[in-house]
């Protein structure tokens, strides 16, 4: 094959424009496909991030009181609601909280190790819940103990009192005390009153999934509090009972007290929560996927078109070569090598372009650096695409009969 390269190069010089166009198209395609694949991978990685909770059996109900209730009245209503919910057949457990994992936005609070420290050591998501919280969400307690019922207090909106005890996630414990000594330690959550870590749970995703919160991914803490006022009921159904619980729960709540608002979109299972939370990731991955596929198809079609044109232009020369003793295989490999040379040129330029495009995205959109594996995959993909697209016209060229040499057109 090697000896063929020189004549191919001198032939290419005679149709520079077409070769440059194919190389350019290959380069741009490589740049976009690499970056698109990388974006897809990052977004899909978000989609498959675990939450640490028993998603298949959880239901969230957003509850708003229609009347303005005093703190005492609201707390009484709340406890009555919880009693009703925990009685529903098929319900494993239920809890009231200020938020739920992957809600989209939520409550975070800076943590320091001394009351005077100004730089936060952690920025965890804050969950409020009673002694049923861990069991309801299906979170695993890996050290220490759960809350006791007598530690749980009601809290109204815009009230700020520090609970004496807290349960934290392992991610937060490790962030605050990298030596693994978190249990029993005191921490400060924007307060001069300390709170003591009495338990550590394994995994519990934060409420917001935005970039700022993802810098503290899985760093969450639970305070032994019942939030009165507008809040979320979280229910854990026994396996297979979620649909039945969903029907019964809203009815039971309205039967308990009619002066409340539960909107249709305020009752969510975790398929819905996930969908809402990862909507933009899913959409972005899909859009990039569609663009990749169509782009590769169009580039392939372009290569087929131009190579066919060249074959058509050179029928006479092919005939001459065949008449002078070149085999069909020689002709085939001529066009395949020609394509390979052009594609390699394009790919080299494309790698530089892909990196430049990624750097631009990094500086303007806080994206991550492109990993080399995507460049490699992209290069391989385009080399194969070029060869695949050139194959059909090259085969047609190899079938040109030596008799063409004698024709005038």
């Amino acid at each position, binding site marked *: 094959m090697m000896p063929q390269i020189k004549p191919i190069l001198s032939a290419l010089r005679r149709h520079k424009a077409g070769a440059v166009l194919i190389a350019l198209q290959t380069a741009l395609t490589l740049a976009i496909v690499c970056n698109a694949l990388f974006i897809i991978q990052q977004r899909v990685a978000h989609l498959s991030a675990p939450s640490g909770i028993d998603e298949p059996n959880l239901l969230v109900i957003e509850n708003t009181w*229609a009347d303005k209730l005093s703190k005492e009245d609201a707390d009484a209503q709340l406890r009555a609601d919880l009693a009703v919910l925990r009685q529903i057949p098929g319900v494993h457990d239920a809890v009231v909280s200020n938020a739920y994992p992957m809600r989209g936005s939520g409550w975070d609070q800076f943590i320091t190790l001394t009351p005077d420290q100004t730089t936060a050591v952690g920025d965890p998501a804050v969950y409020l819940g009673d002694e049923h919280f861990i069991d309801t969400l299906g979170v695993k307690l890996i050290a220490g103990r759960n809350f006791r019922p007598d530690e749980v207090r009601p809290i109204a909106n815009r009230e700020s009192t520090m609970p004496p005890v807290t349960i934290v996630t392992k991610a937060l414990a490790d962030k605050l005390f990298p030596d693994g000594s978190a249990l029993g330690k005191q921490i400060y959550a924007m307060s001069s009153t300390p709170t003591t870590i009495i338990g550590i749970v394994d995994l519990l995703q934060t409420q917001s999934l935005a970039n700022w919160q993802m810098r503290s991914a899985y760093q969450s803490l639970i305070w032994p509090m019942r939030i009165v006022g507008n809040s979320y009921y979280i229910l854990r159904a026994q396996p297979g009972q979620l649909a039945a619980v969903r029907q019964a729960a809203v009815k039971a709540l309205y039967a308990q007290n009619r*002066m409340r608002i539960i909107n249709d979109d305020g009752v969510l299972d975790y398929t819905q929560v996930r969908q809402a939370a990862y909507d*933009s990731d899913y959409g972005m991955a899909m859009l990039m996927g569609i663009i990749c596929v169509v782009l590769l198809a*169009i580039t392939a079609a*372009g290569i087929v*078109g131009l190579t066919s044109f060249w074959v058509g*232009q050179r029928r006479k020369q092919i005939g001459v070569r065949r008449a002078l003793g070149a085999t069909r295989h020689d002709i085939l490999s001529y066009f395949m090598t020609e394509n390979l040379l052009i594609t390699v040129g394009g790919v080299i330029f494309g790698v530089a372009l892909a990196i430049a495009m990624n750097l631009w995205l990094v500086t303007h959109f806080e994206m991550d650096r492109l990993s080399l594996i995507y460049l490699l995959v992209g290069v391989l993909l385009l080399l194969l695409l070029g060869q695949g697209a050139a194959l059909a016209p090259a085969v047609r060229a190899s079938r040109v009969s030596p008799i063409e040499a004698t024709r005038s057109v």
Partner: protein
Amino acid sequence: MFSYYVQLGLRSLRRNPVLTALMVMAIGFGVAASMITYSVFRAVSGNPIPEKSERLFIPQIDSWGPKYNLPGNEPPYALNYVDAVALMRTHQAKRQTMLYPIELSALPLGGQSIPFTVEGFTAQSDFFAMFDVPFQYGSAWAAADDEHRAAVVVISRKLNDKLFGGENSLGREITLSGHNYRVVGVSENWNLKPRFFAAWGGTSFGNPSDIYIPISRAMDLRVDTAGSNSCRGHIDYGDWDGWLQSNCVWVIPWVQLDSTAEAEQYQQFLEGYAADQQRAGRYGWAPNVRLRNVMQWLDYLHVVPQESSVSLLVALGFFAICLINTIGLLLAKFLRRSGEIGVRRALGASRREIYLQYLIEAGTVGFAGGLLGLLLTALGISGVGLLFQPQIARLAHLDITLVGLTLLVSIFATVVAALYPTWRAAQVQPAWQLKSN
């Protein structure tokens, strides 16, 4: 001559159906991808209030200090209650309002109905004139209502339809979260996109507002914000009143300043206010204030979602590749007809006529690509909900501008792409072609 060339173009399109189909598809897909993503980008990046955006400003005051400020020593996104009230009280701007988002419950008339949620804002009387809120009935409440902490409400046309069957409801009472309010105005359904005045907190593309109540009344009733609340340092404030006195920022101020002189004056006033606070010992740092107008504010908050910018860029790159593809295919198509060109030139056609003929031919390809692109764009926009978040996706729509733009961009881009192939075609030497034939 023009129609003759168009006919020639169409005939030539039919002669090479595969090549033509390839080009039309490339242009169609390329332009459709660009237009679909552009329709989303256009919706989220537009100026929500073009005639006034340069005259509406959001003042920011550094109430956290360098230890706690946002990166780059940027002051907080909103004001704490104390600063907000103090700024409004001095009334340095001709029109001004402070506001925050709320969510209340409303009860339709008739005992059997179930309460429902209504979203809206607390504001001051200037709000409506500042932001050009259109009214169906009545008007904004008076400045005196703010002072007297009056229980009045402006409701949206949608809520008026729901509660009062669409009739003139001025003077009637509605109950919101257990308290009565008198209707003083019914606004037309009005929702700026993005809703710049509440851009902090991520509700720029939220549902339209149904209620507006005076902020003074809301404070009496302790109506909590449904928006963001951000605090620094220790927050041992205890209860509601402690929260109002705390450094937590949650009140959003806006002022209207009609000239650069006024804006400069206000900037000086802000610095003066901050200096006073420093002298009073409330803040232990030098004045650090900002006065951004609407577009500067939206830009600063990055209101345009990352997804829409990146996808628009990728789509434009995609379109560029489609055009390069088209250049190659046009080159092949034109040069294949070198013989024909040679004959025409030999028979007296000038280069100019060759240019004209082939550019018009390219134009017809572009037009066909545009039609396909239009079809794909319409299809894509109806399916845009699968690709973008619902609140963003529903903003994208196909209008006459987009239709025109799709066709125009396709034709223009294809003609530009055809420049090089046409130039090559015009360079064909008649003698050479005739000889080799």
